[in-house]
């Protein structure tokens, strides 16, 4: 049986290893950190785990509609392509730090990219 992308990256353990690194990068990234400065860091981290699970091709029940609704309030605050690019870049850097091979990183970036229009509500 062939392994799924999620399994190749390392499944839930990989999500857990990635979330702190990714969240630190996002908080330090002036291009996008204003969107993540929620008062409740735990809740933010849980949402980021959902993001990572989704991008790793892991189990989730998100629809395009969920992505639209989930980011609508951010689009109203000016979310655009440059922010999606920044998120995908931080995601790639996170995976690099975890020694994930480049071809898998490209697959992850492609999944994130595939919902770009939904995230940006267009």
């Amino acid at each position, binding site marked *: 049986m062939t392994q799924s992308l999620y399994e190749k990256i390392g499944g839930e353990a990989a999500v857990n290893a990635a979330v702190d690194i990714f969240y630190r990068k996002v908080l330090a990234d002036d291009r996008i950190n204003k969107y993540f400065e929620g008062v409740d860091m*735990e809740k933010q981290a849980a949402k980021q785990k959902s993001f990572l699970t989704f991008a790793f091709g892991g189990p*989730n*029940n998100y629809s395009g509609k969920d992505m639209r609704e989930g980011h609508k309030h951010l689009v109203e605050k000016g979310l655009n392509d440059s922010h999606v690019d920044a998120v995908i870049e931080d995601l790639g850097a996170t995976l690099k730090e975890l020694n994930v091979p480049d071809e898998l990183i490209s697959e992850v970036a492609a999944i994130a990219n595939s919902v770009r229009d939904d995230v940006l509500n267009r």
Partner: protein
Amino acid sequence: MPVITYDKQLYQCADGETVLQCLRRHGVSIPSSCESGVCQTCLMQGIRGKPPALAQQGLKDTLQVQHYFMACVCVPEEEMEVVLAGADITHLLEVEVLGKEPLSDDILRIYLKPAEPFDYKPGQFINLYRPDGLVRSFSLASLPQREEPLELQVRVLPGGRMSTWIQDEMSVGDKLAIKGPVGDCFYVPGKPQQNILLVGTGTGLAPLWGIVRDALDQGHTGQIHLYHGSYTADGLYLVDELRALERAHQNFIYMPCVDEAGAAEAGDATIGRADLVALTAIPDLKSWRIYLCGHPDMVAVMKKKAFLAGASLSDIYADPFVYSATDNASKADS
């Protein structure tokens, strides 16, 4: 199949059904999002029966021991009574005031005896009810395993409604009501070698005094560094007790800190804000466990700084002493 009790109603789970699916099938709406056990939107708490481990994966240990779980991945193995996370599951309990003594010019130590057995973890807090209904939160500094009476450490604020009442009117022998325990800021055994940093300002020392002694009692072997911050040297209390604890335990270090303004009387305390002094001393907090209690601004800023300094978010426990609004409402969330 197990029966789920929610809001006083009984619901029969079908084979393999999750708590979320079962409640939803019966027309009960529970907030949810990812529905795959990650985003924690459907967080609930079991108040009877134990959730399966799978439904608790990724939750903070202090939530796990209080039987929090994610409804979307909880296929119950036994009968459970469940509530939404954050629901008030405590009831009023009578306490008798056993003692009241000064710890400093404006800090009082209060001892309370509950009328019934009261189970809590040092560092959690209670809501204290004044007879006219005014409510304030106070942290528990005592250790239940030593059968100590409940201990509170209360700063008397000029014009503070509850705290001046405690100072001027509340007497030994009085009967009051409390609700609790509440809160996720306490010691959980299981990683005895992990280093622990605790930073508290003012009476933020109260929960930390409980947590430090609890950790030592439970045989914690990693380093335990306590930074206590105060505007003035007079606000440093329990100094002798903490120094004694330091002598008794090689792995415990106590660092009192006083703001610039109080520098003249600082004695052997370090000058500077406790959170900054701690970060300078320990710039890399990777794999440390962190406890932050007291001033809400210090707690919020230090939480972020500790995370950026390498601590994992799941290892940071925080208890901001949020002040009540000017009305009579209580502020019990943390």
